[in-house]
């Protein structure tokens, strides 16, 4: 019999009946207080917003924070404000509120698609947009739409605020540019210039699932030619990514199915998919091209045929 060195399973540590982790709990009542706590405990703390990612990870013992800072009481971080040229969304805004917002639906079809595709109603009632971003999953449904919509994020800390374009926000699975003492406060989405269409397509195992592969696009066609085409892919690399080269290649070209099909082949070179429990690298590579093409066509169709009923 071969005796081997095998890593033991950690499954005796899992217990989803409870949160099997000891931690100190804070529920600050103001942003100032929250930032103070983050300043003090940041590196050993986890911020609790909707909890749909954090609690699962704690039950799975993937994270065992010493401190949990529940920011649910910070009502001032939950809003959707139409400010003319841009829309500001508080980081604590729930997905269900995005789903019910005429502003989101009207200006940001790609984001609206993503909202409809994320979880079920119960999850959308709990989960926040800020949480989805800060969790920094390569499969985060909000990331590709916000990337093609060129959103900017406001990060706050006791030292003040800074603005980061979303394309520079993600650093790896579960990793962002945020410092331990920072909190995501706001997402700013500029309204796309008139004539821009956007869409988000997600391929998953079932209707209620994490993405195997996802893509968002925003495109503007002028006189039959592509003025710009923005493309972002989820679940195909350590972070959601923009397909810069493909975008560049499409620029100025006629918007025809043949041109698009030919050029989206480049997408394959801009991603680095892996085999995992949800899908295969082969599948992701193949299907990324398909859904980018589909999303580009759908984006443009929404301009031509109209988007809102």
């Amino acid at each position, binding site marked *: 019999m071969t005796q081997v060195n095998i890593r*033991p399973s950690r499954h005796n540590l899992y217990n989803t009946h*409870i949160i099997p982790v000891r931690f100190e709990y804070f529920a600050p009542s103001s942003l100032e207080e929250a930032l103070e706590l983050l300043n003090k405990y940041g590196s050993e703390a986890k911020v609790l917003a909707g909890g749909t990612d954090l609690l699962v990870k704690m039950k799975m013992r993937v994270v065992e924070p010493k401190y949990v800072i529940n920011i649910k009481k910070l009502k001032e971080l939950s809003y959707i404000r139409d400010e003319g040229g841009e829309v500001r969304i508080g980081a604590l805004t729930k997905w269900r509120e995005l789903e019910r917002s005429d502003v989101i639906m009207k200006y940001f079809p790609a984001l609206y698609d993503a909202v409809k595709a994320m979880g079920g109603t119960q999850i959308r009632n709990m989960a926040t947009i800020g949480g989805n971003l800060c969790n920094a999953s390569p499969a985060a449904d909000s990331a590709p739409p916000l990337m093609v919509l060129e959103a900017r994020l406001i990060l706050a800390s006791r030292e003040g605020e800074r603005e980061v374009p979303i394309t520079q926000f993600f650093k790896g699975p579960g990793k962002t540019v945020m410092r331990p003492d920072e909190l995501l406060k706001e997402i700013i989405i500029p309204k796309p210039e008139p004539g821009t269409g956007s869409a988000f397509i997600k391929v998953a195992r079932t209707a209620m699932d994490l993405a195997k592969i996802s893509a968002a696009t925003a495109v503007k066609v002028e006189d039959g030619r592509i003025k710009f085409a923005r493309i972002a892919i989820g679940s195909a690399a350590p972070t959601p990514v923009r397909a810069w080269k493909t975008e560049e290649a499409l620029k100025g070209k006629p918007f025809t199915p043949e041109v698009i099909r030919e050029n989206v082949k480049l997408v394959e070179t801009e991603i680095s998919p892996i085999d995992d429990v949800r899908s295969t690298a082969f599948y992701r590579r193949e299907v990324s091209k398909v859904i980018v093409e589909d999303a580009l066509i759908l984006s443009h169709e929404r301009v031509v045929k109209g988007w809102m009923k």
Partner: protein
Amino acid sequence: MEEPKHIFIGKKTIRKDGIPKVTGTLKFSSDIYVPGMLVGRVFKSPYAFADVKRIDTSEAERMGAVVITPDDVPDKIFNPRLVSIFEVTYKDYRVLTKHPRYLGDAIAAVAAPTEEAAQRALEAIKVEFERVYEPILDPFEAMSPSAPLIHKRILKGDEWIDVKNNVGCTLEYSEGDVDKALKEADVVLERRFRTNRRYHMQLEPKTSVCIPHSDGSITIYSTTQTIHNTRILISQIFDIPMSKINVVKVPIGGSFGSSIQINPVVPISVALCLKARKPVKISMTREEDIYDHAAYQMHFKIRAGAKSDGTLIAGELENIMDIGAHQIQAYPLLGTALGWFVSLYKWKNIRYVGKAVYTNKVPTCAFRGYGAPQVSWAVETLIDEMAEELGIDPVEFRLKNYVGKGDIFWGQGPTVKSIIRSDGVPELLQRGKELIGWERRRPPSEKTGRYRRGIGVGRSFHTSGAGGPISGETIDYTGAILKLNEDGTIDYITALQDHGGGTLDAHVKIIAEELGVPPDLINLVWSDTQTTLYDVCTHASRGTYVGGGAAVQAARELKNKIFNYAIRVLNKAVNQDMLELGYDKELGQAVVYVRDNPQMRITLKDLATIAWQRNWGTISTTVTYRSKAAPPSFTVYFVEVEVDTYTGKVRPVKVIAGADIGTVINPDYAAGQLHGGFAQGWGMATLEDTIYDPRTGELTNKGFITDYKILTAPDMPKLDDFQVIFAHTYEPTGPHGAKGLGEAALNSVAGAVANAIYNAIGVRFYELPITPERILEALKKKGR
């Protein structure tokens, strides 16, 4: 064909547990709480194949927990399923083990006042391992002579047997001369198939509550399909007389076969309870439950031969079952798998080799259909290919060769056989063809473009119970008690469990039909082992057929006793045989009257009151019942799918779900079974599997259902595109002509789906599930 008029049977009614379920007031085992109750947690092996050297419980005990190790439990080897007779029961289980054979085998357990305290105590247990072996995860590797033995010795009945090549049990069978027939055949096909290893994903994870009493007796509440077998097993393991064990029937949140066996949490909770002398509850988390049971994974090789006129003349099946670390009902399944094979088509010459092989994986057990979904998928795929090869319409080919009326049906392997007396297959195939639009079906070669549609047919059946006139290797009988209350209402008492399908509501309707007492005046008693007669288990789609049969017999006996009393009050009536009992619509209750003289009558209510007031005694009846046959319920699915050849995604477009279940007792529950059966079958065909890390033997999803998806309503066809049809048949041996349905509703789905996918894209798949990944790879290979 007899089609009697019914008053209650076939009518839509609200099920008795409907309002409690919808309002959340129904109490399941997981909801039970008793004062002073401790929470139990199980220490599961962190290795797939290892031997324990030492277990240090001191820290956990210092924390105040009650701890048990293999040294604290009886040194008994058992099989947790008691449906087969002793002689063919293979035993390799222990309550707790020092020799874990899969990553999840229970090594120790703790009990503490709260879930948190129990969890901390669990984490404080230190287990030192003597040896850790490389897990054996492939059954063919397991059978190689150089593979280490997962179990060296196991018990068959009371006899020790040595395990060779990790083969837990075998079954071989032959009939006629297969080799000769294959030589004579004009077309011979040989195919290998591999099924997936699905998890049951029943709503309620396994739970057990054990309560000790001062007289040394115990009471158990658990998620079980059989309260009586639970009592017998606990009695055998712990040497407690059965009269000191009471197992209470509690509503169960689904099962799909995963609690035919007594789940490991039950004996563990008893052991903890006996040591702690306090009530102990163990409720598995979903993550633990997924490490508790899975469907039998089967590797088939089929060889079949047919003459050019479309007559099948040979069928050979090799069935290698990857059973995982323990035997639950592997041996009887070797028989039923053969039974399903021979009962699908008239092969005429048959040869079968079945082997159940141990691997270091989650133990497998019955999963809705007990091998029939697997066998039917493979056979229906092959039959479709054969029809194509012969140039015969697949429906015609099936009609020509299927096993139907007058033929022998193997309800539960070689020892449970009966003659088929009711057969709706021709009707279902004909109507299904019309409804799906079979004439639209074109060969795959004619299909182009991104989205391609295909139409497929799949047929199967399931048995209704495992009874019959001959006592075979399977135990199958039940009991029923009926009691006429002092106001003319009825108490109905049975041990038979309802998994959620509405089985007991069917019994109530049958009793109502017999006695004329409306269903809402019949009380369904939630009872226990001490006040019910033995029932083997609610499995094998026997709930309506066998349990309903007992209900008929009990009701008829009760009726006779009612007539004995009625004759005393209907004072001019002299002939008891001329009395009738029926429902009076105007009065809304049952009435006894004299045939041909209906004005001579008394309500059952008045009669019951008189019997009480005049000291005549209670009218009641107790029956123990074994059915006379185990007839097949046939199902036929016609499925239209649409394949996106760019993403490999398959969408169900239209479904015709046809079932021959004899008399339909509850039409909407029956339709519900077919909707649910399709959903589960679609999952089997296109989605579900449990995957193991080849190095560690751990599930790659680590037990978390984030990565074991099942389908939900949005994945299903629209209701308008899903049509249920019932054949117009009557089963002479069934209660009011009824047969079972639960499993048949699933069994034919995967075959129909696979054939529809083939018809869309021209690719046959011999491995389940047929995922978008596999479809896309196959299309790429084929060049789209």
